[in-house]
């Protein structure tokens, strides 16, 4: 079983861009080569049966957090803006990325996370962006080690925007730092307006919430004001944009948001 993500088969990085479509990278955490300094252990006494208690006081996700910090450092040095894109399945992550790739030109690279298939990566590739697919098998989220594998294969150029499309899930991805610069969460009007209230851990962390599929508002029973009110209750400082990835409505504000965060040209050349 995979040591970090809990997936039974081991996550696989599939390259679906360039000439090497069949190339697969096994997901092997022991290959990461990240070293940790040895930490002093505190021994808090020995029991009558000879058992001793060792104080660890260590975060459970410390290893993932260290790998995420290395990813973040690598991305910053290279001048790549990394966005962790999360939503429930079907909210429109891939459709948004297809359109964003077409409209922003060759500036985008994508790491696609799904349990199975390379369907989404094929869509992104067709839209003109370099992409690698990570299949997590039974795993319900991406972790920092999988993203490190993806980065090595994708090799995003300086000055680019890297989207990490997480596995469609509003629960587990909230716990795992990937080394991104910002988290973007998509809600859609075909879901319940109460998603922020039901999944507060996810929405609380979002730097930006996109309310997608607004072109369908006339046809669905979705209360935009109730959704906004719930979002403000779980995350008072959050920013929300209303968009339609299908029609393009509202996307100029999304692109502005991205441009404001993209490293300036001077950083790209360094």
């Amino acid at each position, binding site marked *: 079983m995979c040591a970090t993500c809990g997936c039974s088969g081991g996550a696989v990085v599939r390259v679906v861009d360039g000439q090497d479509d069949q190339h697969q990278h096994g997901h092997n955490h022991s290959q990461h080569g990240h070293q940790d300094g040895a930490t002093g252990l505190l021994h808090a006494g020995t029991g009558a049966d000879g*058992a001793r208690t060792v104080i660890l*006081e260590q975060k*459970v996700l410390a*290893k993932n957090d260290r790998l995420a910090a290395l990813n973040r450092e690598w991305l910053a040095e290279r001048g790549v803006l990394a966005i962790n894109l999360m939503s429930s399945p079907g909210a429109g992550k891939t459709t948004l990325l297809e359109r964003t790739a077409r409209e922003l030109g060759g500036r985008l690279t994508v790491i696609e996370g799904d349990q199975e298939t390379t369907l989404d990566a094929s869509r992104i590739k067709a839209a003109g962006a370099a992409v690698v697919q990570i299949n997590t098998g039974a795993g319900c989220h991406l972790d920092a080690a999988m993203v490190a594998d993806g980065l090595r294969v994708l090799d995003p150029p300086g000055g680019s925007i890297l989207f990490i499309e997480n596995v469609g899930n509003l629960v587990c991805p909230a716990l795992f730092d990937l080394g991104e610069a910002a988290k973007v969460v998509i809600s859609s009007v075909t879901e319940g307006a109460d998603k922020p209230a039901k999944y507060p851990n996810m929405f609380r962390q979002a730097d930006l919430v996109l309310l997608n599929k607004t072109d369908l508002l006339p046809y669905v029973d979705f209360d935009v004001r109730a959704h906004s009110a719930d979002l*403000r209750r779980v995350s008072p400082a959050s920013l929300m944009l209303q968009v339609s990835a299908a029609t393009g409505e509202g996307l100029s504000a999304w692109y502005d948001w991205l441009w404001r965060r993209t490293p300036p040209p001077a950083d790209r050349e360094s």
Partner: protein
Amino acid sequence: MHELAIVEGVVDAVAERLPGAQVTCVRLEIGALSGVVADSVRFCFELATEGTSLQGARLEITEPAGECRCRVCGRIFHPDMPIMACPCGSADVTVLAGQELKITSVMVA
């Protein structure tokens, strides 16, 4: 079911800090606001530790309650999940406790 990944993280961390040790008890702290369900960790602990240095170990979990301070009225309160709103109506709060997700100690034979 990220609780399985959480137990794997525990196995990893203990093996890294105490290589080769035979662990008889693991003590975790899982706060009420951590996003991890202690009962789910208990449920998958036996399965996920099979064949590791933690196999057969006793699992003890403490679950610190959530505690927040309201940035508007200054009150300290224990939030009802899922919304961390102060009784005064403000959701602008600082979390003081309840987000813990750590291994406090282990017992080794």
